[in-house]
């Protein structure tokens, strides 16, 4: 491996790394991709929902052979109290379309498939190879990487860092700061297996239709976070995640939190009788726009979770990762064809292209949301209980006249959060949302 030179080296074989490697190799660049796991996907964790559009732009006919679980026809948004949930469900037969918009996936399988596609267009993949550091020339320009495979060095015109949320290689070379503990969520998840007909009966599905549930409320024990439950073909992904600094302040363990979520009366019947075959944990960068680090420099670019490109409001991350990877790949191909050097000034093209599309626009739009949620924890504690009490007062028929019921509901909101507090919350949320 010594002294071999490539057009580009991609560090990591997750979604962003695969998107970058595929884009460049398909356009004829000589690409080396390095992955520390035994196979691509062996260390990659996600909910997981795949947004088709971002993959279509890389592999238009991916539906023909990608391992997809179920296409999502129903989204349930739940606000959970201790023994209840108030839900907003949206289900539409329109989602049963020729080219569905969202799918549930299992990353270990999906990433293996994506990686095969990457190799088919000509990229070289080396697994079980951990990149230990960036190699720089005297001017500080990145010229390659050192790996733990016989301390081998490999060289390239440009290094694409797709190293994930724990972006150690970039951090150790001072390309970016350490992620703050209030900018990252810790999520734990389990895979529960059930026969597909049981899943279909429980969720009112047929064929490949799927349901996803996103939940917030007292399930996170006062911390900023959410729970989720996604239907796969023969399994259910169930998990919960909260901001790391909140976890650190609490005394809750992540696995206790997940156990309580799984045993919530609204969740328990959905996974009853299932067999849990895997338990995983992962960090999700949630710092948003304000946490985005330097994206490029002399001889390097960074893509995916290491960029903090996650839209936590819309639960979008994998599409953002693939898009940063694709755009980085396209920018490099464009420079390569022009025979331009991979300098910082030229690689600015990458950021420019990200600014032009939904990616930076969306992250910018929601730049104040992480701060809003962090400083307004009652959104996760008080409101869910208020909603639940209100719904219960409304639906329970116990001889109370309707006017008194309404009064009681309004009164409970006022009492717990004062009119000013309520108006203030609405105003702050609207401002952060805008």
């Amino acid at each position, binding site marked *: 491996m010594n002294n071999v030179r490539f057009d580009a080296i991609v560090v990591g074989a997750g979604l962003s790394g695969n998107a970058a490697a595929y884009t460049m190799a398909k356009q004829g660049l000589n690409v080396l991709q390095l992955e*520390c796991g035994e196979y691509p996907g062996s260390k990659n964790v996600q909910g997981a929902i795949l947004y088709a559009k971002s993959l279509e732009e890389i592999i238009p006919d991916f539906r023909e052979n990608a391992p997809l679980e179920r296409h999502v026809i129903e989204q349930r948004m739940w606000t959970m109290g201790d023994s209840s949930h108030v839900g907003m469900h949206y289900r539409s037969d329109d989602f049963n379309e020729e080219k569905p918009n969202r799918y549930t996936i299992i990353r*270990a399988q999906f990433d293996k498939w994506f990686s095969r596609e990457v190799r088919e267009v000509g990229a070289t993949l080396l697994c079980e190879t951990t990149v230990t550091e960036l190699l720089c020339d005297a001017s500080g320009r990145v010229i390659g990487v050192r790996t733990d495979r016989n301390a081998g060095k490999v060289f390239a015109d440009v290094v694409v860092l797709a190293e994930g949320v724990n972006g150690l290689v970039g951090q150790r070379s001072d390309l970016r700061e350490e992620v703050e503990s209030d900018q990252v969520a810790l999520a734990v998840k389990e895979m529960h297996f059930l026969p597909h007909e049981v899943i279909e009966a429980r969720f009112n599905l047929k064929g490949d239709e799927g349901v996803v549930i996103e939940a917030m409320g007292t399930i996170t024990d006062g911390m900023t976070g959410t729970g989720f439950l996604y239907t796969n073909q023969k*399994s259910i992904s169930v998990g919960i995640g909260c901001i790391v600094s909140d976890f650190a302040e609490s005394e809750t363990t992540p696995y206790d939190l997940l156990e*309580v979520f799984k045993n919530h009366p609204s969740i328990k019947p959905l996974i009853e009788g299932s067999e849990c075959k895997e338990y995983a944990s992962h960090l999700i960068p949630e710092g948003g726009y304000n946490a985005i680090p330097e994206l490029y420099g002399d001889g390097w670019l960074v893509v995916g979770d290491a960029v903090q490109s996650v839209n936590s409001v819309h639960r979008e991350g994998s599409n953002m990762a693939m898009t940063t990877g694709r755009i980085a790949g396209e920018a490099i191909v464009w420079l390569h064809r022009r025979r331009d050097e991979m300098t910082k000034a030229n690689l600015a093209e990458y950021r420019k292209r990200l600014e032009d599309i939904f990616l930076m626009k969306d992250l910018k739009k929601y730049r104040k949301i992480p701060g809003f949620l962090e400083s307004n924890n009652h959104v996760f504690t008080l409101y869910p209980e208020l909603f639940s009490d209100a719904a219960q007062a409304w639906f329970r028929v116990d001889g109370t006249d309707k006017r008194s019921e309404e009064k009681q509901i309004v009164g409970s909101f006022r009492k717990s959060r004062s009119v000013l507090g309520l108006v203030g919350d609405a105003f702050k949320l609207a401002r952060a949302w805008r």
Partner: protein
Amino acid sequence: MTYIPQEKGMRVEEKFYQNRYLVDAGRPHIKVLPHETPSKALLSMTHLCPAGCYELNERGQAEITAEGCMECGTCRIATAKTGDIEWNYQRGGFGVLYKFC
């Protein structure tokens, strides 16, 4: 919230015993640096680690048994400011191997 007692205090080993790991015997990728008393951040890892890898020994110092580690990096970020641990990627091929996630 009101915890249902039997769900609390479960052994985390019961959770990850089905996971697949290739343990890099004798070469742990996370080391706790020598200390007299653990910092608040290091101490928080005894409940924060999703694999329950951190425990206090009889002298009140934090120790790590990293066999069940899922390489999430929570301890790396939680202790970044206090510098209590040394965190590295696993050597190529070692560590957790997810099949279903």
